[in-house]
């Protein structure tokens, strides 16, 4: 059999989960276009949309209208942050680089700028973002508001690189927030879209750089035994544990001055069916059979290495859509939490093919950050194909995250409310109080946000 690359395995894993036909939803021809998120798992029928072209339009809108509103970026959140029967405020037109400081390596960008649209223009300015998430189609505002992060024990979430931001409050006021008020800045960065609408952001970058990426497969326990050392000795280090397997796909990224290029040891297989067959997915195998077959498949995965500009290495294109749950837990219990999840999937024969994702993120000071505090956190993600019902799987795994003190990613599926969250985030009550001050009428709240913040 042919060897596999990590990317080919991930793609085939997703497609295997999608063996059933794509399940279309309801009619597309409602009077006003329904809104749906990236995965299709969240939707709403808004009363209308405000496609704002300027900050002035936004302030005027908020001062002169009533009723619920929700800002929307690129719709990449799996949690119901956006759905409303009020109006959606689209910030796409607030995009692009507004100002740059070549000496300080900073840029001010429109909040609706998509992360993936920043890489090339920043490179032309001699700058690069210090870190990026795995998917880069989010808007800057959305990524920051949800505490979105990349990988790296020394690299905090994207919000930590926000030097200042401009917030239009629910009553149409304009607040320029920077380091002169540290508390306000730490509250406003990861704002979950509950404090108002961010219109521009000043990002701290660094000089443009290249990265060398190495991908391979290895026994999960071998990696976990040395995870702290591996995470500390590489700029980015993470694993994608295979379910029903003793193996993980490993991703290691470091800065380099080497020339750009890619080395594939052997060609990727072209026949997905052969991969599915090797996994035994069409044979309704027992967990033990799946483990044996998955291990055999993992053993065929050959290392690959490549060098490219940082923004091309850090983010990937997703060819299949899915829903995701992600929690952070203290790094010292991360491996044990991961083991319990993998063991549960195996012992209970949960029907899932998607890999998990396990990595470290540096601590930061933003009130609602998953890594708020003094120590790095381990983040663990589980996924389910967009066409499948994610709830049974996620409902079974979520209590395991809670057992280890897990904090949810705001943009991903979770079921916590303020009752639990106040114990997980030391400054949660402060955030709730600030939100009440800025939006006493609760104009920015939908049902989900009300459960999160409106005690």
């Amino acid at each position, binding site marked *: 059999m042919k060897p596999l690359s990590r990317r080919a395995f991930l793609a085939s894993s997703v497609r295997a989960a999608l063996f059933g036909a*794509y399940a*279309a*939803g309801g*009619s*597309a*021809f409602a009077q*006003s*276009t*329904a*809104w*749906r*998120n*990236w*995965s*299709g798992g969240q*939707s709403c029928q808004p009363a209308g*949309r405000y*496609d704002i072209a300027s900050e002035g339009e936004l302030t005027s809108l908020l001062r002169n209208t009533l009723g619920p509103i929700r800002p*929307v*970026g*690129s*719709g990449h959140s799996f949690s119901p942050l956006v759905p409303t029967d009020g109006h*959606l405020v*689209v910030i*796409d*037109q607030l*995009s692009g680089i507004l100002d740059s400081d070549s000496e300080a390596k900073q840029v001010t960008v429109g909040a609706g700028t*998509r992360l*993936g*649209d920043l*890489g*090339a*223009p920043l490179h032309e300015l001699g700058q690069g973002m210090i870190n990026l998430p795995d998917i880069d*189609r989010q808007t800057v505002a959305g990524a920051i508001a949800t505490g979105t992060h990349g990988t790296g024990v020394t690299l905090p979430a994207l919000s930590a690189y926000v030097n200042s931001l401009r917030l239009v409050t629910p009553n149409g006021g304009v607040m320029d927030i920077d380091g002169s008020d540290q508390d306000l800045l730490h509250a406003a960065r990861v704002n979950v879209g509950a404090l108002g609408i961010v219109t521009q952001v000043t990002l701290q970058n660094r000089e443009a750089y290249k990265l060398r990426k190495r991908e391979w497969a290895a026994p999960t326990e071998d990696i976990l035994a040395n995870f702290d050392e591996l995470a500390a000795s590489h700029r980015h280090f993470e694993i994608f544990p295979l379910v029903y397997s003793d193996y993980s796909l490993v991703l290691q990224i470091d800065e380099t001055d080497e020339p750009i290029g890619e080395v594939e040891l052997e060609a990727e297989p072209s026949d997905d069916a052969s991969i599915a067959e090797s996994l035994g997915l069409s044979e309704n195998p027992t967990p033990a059979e799946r483990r044996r077959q998955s291990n055999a498949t993992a053993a065929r995965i050959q290392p690959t290495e490549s060098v490219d500009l940082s923004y*091309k290495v850090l983010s990937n*294109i*997703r*060819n*299949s*859509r899915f829903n995701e749950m992600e929690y952070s837990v203290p790094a010292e219990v991360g491996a044990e939490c991961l083991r319990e999840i993998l063991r549960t999937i195996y012992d209970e024969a949960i029907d899932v093919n998607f890999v998990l994702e396990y990595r470290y993120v540096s601590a930061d000071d933003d009130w609602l950050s998953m890594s708020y505090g003094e120590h790095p956190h381990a983040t663990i993600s589980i996924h389910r194909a*967009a066409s499948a019902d994610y709830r049974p799987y996620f409902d079974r795994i979520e209590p395991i995250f809670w057992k280890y003190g897990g904090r949810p990613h705001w943009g991903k599926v979770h079921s916590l409310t303020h009752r639990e969250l106040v114990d997980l985030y030391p400054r949660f009550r402060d955030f709730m109080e600030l939100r009440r001050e800025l939006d006493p009428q609760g104009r920015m709240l939908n049902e989900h946000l009300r459960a999160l913040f409106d005690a």
Partner: protein
Amino acid sequence: MNSPSLRLLSVPLFALLLVSCSNSGFVAQPGPPPFRSATIDQDVMGKWSRSCALCHISGEAGAPVVGDTAEWRRRLQQGEDAVLANVVEGFNSMPPLGYCMACELSDFRAMIVYMAGLNQ
């Protein structure tokens, strides 16, 4: 991934390549007017450039490329409403609404016309 600036520069080039395309093979659908009656104005083009262009210029993730009339004709054989439904509901790797959160149905209709060259 190509830079956005390069992508946007490519738009006029692809527009020049658009050729006339007969819709004689299409099955008439009751309800909404046919796509070719849709109008493309600066507002719609702005929305297209900020969202759809991300994938439909480069063909990223298997997206049919703007101006590839043969591919668009093939896809439109399933009916205009079906193509529109794919945009709204999402299809394969394209998310619902194709990343255009500001778009209404009339916008999508105009964008499909533009990309398929039906208005030439």
